[in-house]
């Protein structure tokens, strides 16, 4: 074990990985759905504590890429490593991987038959087998962190979109993940609730959580991202630090896309 102080390193199985290596390493990933090649050779690294934003037109493979990282979608070729654990291997310990990687979805996907607090508590209690009282305490703190104290007993149907999405973020955080994946988390929200969700994500990023965001919020991306990636038809066309990326895009496709959006 490289460093006992690092909980992340102590938890995962791969002894060769150290926190100074990429926490997510993606190499030449290909993925097809039927005849349609969604990912055509994606390669990049994410370091611990990085916030990266992936932008691109609909259908360019952004969401699929995120789903490949926590093995919701199996890849056809290439390799993905999360903290050294090889996601592409057939003998992958899926559950061990998913304990390290949290994911938040466009449609929130809260469990409608459980209250906000129960939604957050379920996975730590049932998957991690943690003590129920301790988990309840942590779940309350997480709800407070996303500014939803008092909503413990509300069912998802009683919450606004923005509130549901913040519960979903808290639910993911309750598993103490090392990487958070955000898949267009504000796309299904009313404009006035977008900011409360973005604020939550920004705080997470500032606390040093490794975040990978697929987003259409360019202003937000420019502020929080350490690195921008632009995908088009399954490949990364251009990437760079946000100031440079937005001010001075080099590729024609990036220029065209940003021209449409900004």
């Amino acid at each position, binding site marked *: 074990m490289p460093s006992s102080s690092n909980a992340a390193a102590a938890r995962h199985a791969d002894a060769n990985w150290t926190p100074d290596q990429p926490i997510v390493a993606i190499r030449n990933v290909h993925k097809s759905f039927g005849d349609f090649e969604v990912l055509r050779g994606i390669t990049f690294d994410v370091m611990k504590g990085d916030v990266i934003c992936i932008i691109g037109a609909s259908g360019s493979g952004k969401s699929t890429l995120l*789903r490949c990282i*926590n093995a*919701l979608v199996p890849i056809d070729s290439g390799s993905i490593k999360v903290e050294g654990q090889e996601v592409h291997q057939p003998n992958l310990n*899926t*559950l061990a991987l*998913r*304990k390290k*990687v*949290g*994911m938040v*979805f466009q*449609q929130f*996907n*809260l*469990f*409608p*038959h459980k209250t906000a607090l129960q939604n957050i508590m*379920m*996975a730590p209690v*049932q*998957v991690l087998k943690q003590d129920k009282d301790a988990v309840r305490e942590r779940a309350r703190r997480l709800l407070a962190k996303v500014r939803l104290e008092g909503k413990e007993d509300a069912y998802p*149907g009683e919450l606004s979109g923005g509130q549901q999405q913040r519960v*979903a973020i808290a*639910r*993911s955080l309750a*598993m103490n993940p090392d990487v958070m994946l955000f898949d267009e988390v504000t796309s299904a929200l009313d404009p006035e609730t977008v900011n409360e969700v973005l604020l939550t994500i920004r705080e997470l990023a500032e606390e040093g959580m490794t975040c990978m965001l697929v987003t259409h919020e360019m202003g937000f991306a420019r502020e929080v991202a350490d690195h921008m990636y632009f995908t088009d038809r399954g490949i990364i066309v251009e990437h760079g630090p946000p100031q440079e990326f937005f001010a001075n895009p080099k590729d024609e496709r990036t220029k065209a896309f940003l021209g449409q959006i900004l």
Partner: protein
Amino acid sequence: MAKRHDVYGTTDLPVLLPAAERLNRQAAAERVLGAPKLRLRAWHGLALAAVIVLWTSFVWAQADGAGNEQQESVISAIWRWLPVLLGGFVFNIAISFLSMGIGTVAGTLLGIMQISQVWPVRGSSWLVTQFFRNAPWLVLLFFCMFLLPFEFTVFGVTIPFPDWIKAVIGLALPVMANVSEIVRGAIQSIPSGQWEAAHSLAFSRWQILSQIILPQCVKRMLPPWMNLYAILTMATVLASVVGVGEVMTLTQRVLAAENRPEFLVPFYGFVMLLFFAYCYPIARTTQKLELRYAVKQ
């Protein structure tokens, strides 16, 4: 002369036009009729059935009683046989409970097997479901009657296997197949996002099914399940064909004992009434539940 559209008045709001048109038509019809249109309620059905029973019995008694002296009226005959008939009906309900219980447990398992990731499990459970779902209930009943032994001997202990238990099993088979389809349909109607979210939280497949998917299915399954129960209850009279002493069998025996052909219609009418009184509230509740769940997602 202008068209008569004056009962509900006219409207210049386009959205109201279809409704206004319909209400005007209804008003016109009611004017011709001279009374409000009848809206059928539960008690209308009951009252109608009761009237038919009374009327037919009256007619039969009149037609036949003219020649004979001092015959018992059909009402008092039904009253006299009431304990026997009700006892038989309770037996029907008992059969329906048992069949439904067995069929639900087996059908739930079968339905879950239908979405298994192991193809032999999925395929075989699909085959079983389709086979029993598309077989006539009476044929299944006959098969159970003649294929199952009248007693089992396990470790030297002989367990009797009476006809009514065979009937319960025979009826449980199609129930199982139908419940299997209800469960499969309900599971597949849950949005895939629920699976994705649960997977990303590292739940195992079985945990997802039992903790997240199936609890959400219960609401969706309740109306079709109750519907199936009402159908099953009415089908329990099939057991009379294979000689189980339920309400139809008993009615036949009573009629044979009475030996009065004019009792035939009122007695069977009474049995119909029993089933109607039991099944109709179930059907109404099902409709109400469907309506309520349709509104709340």
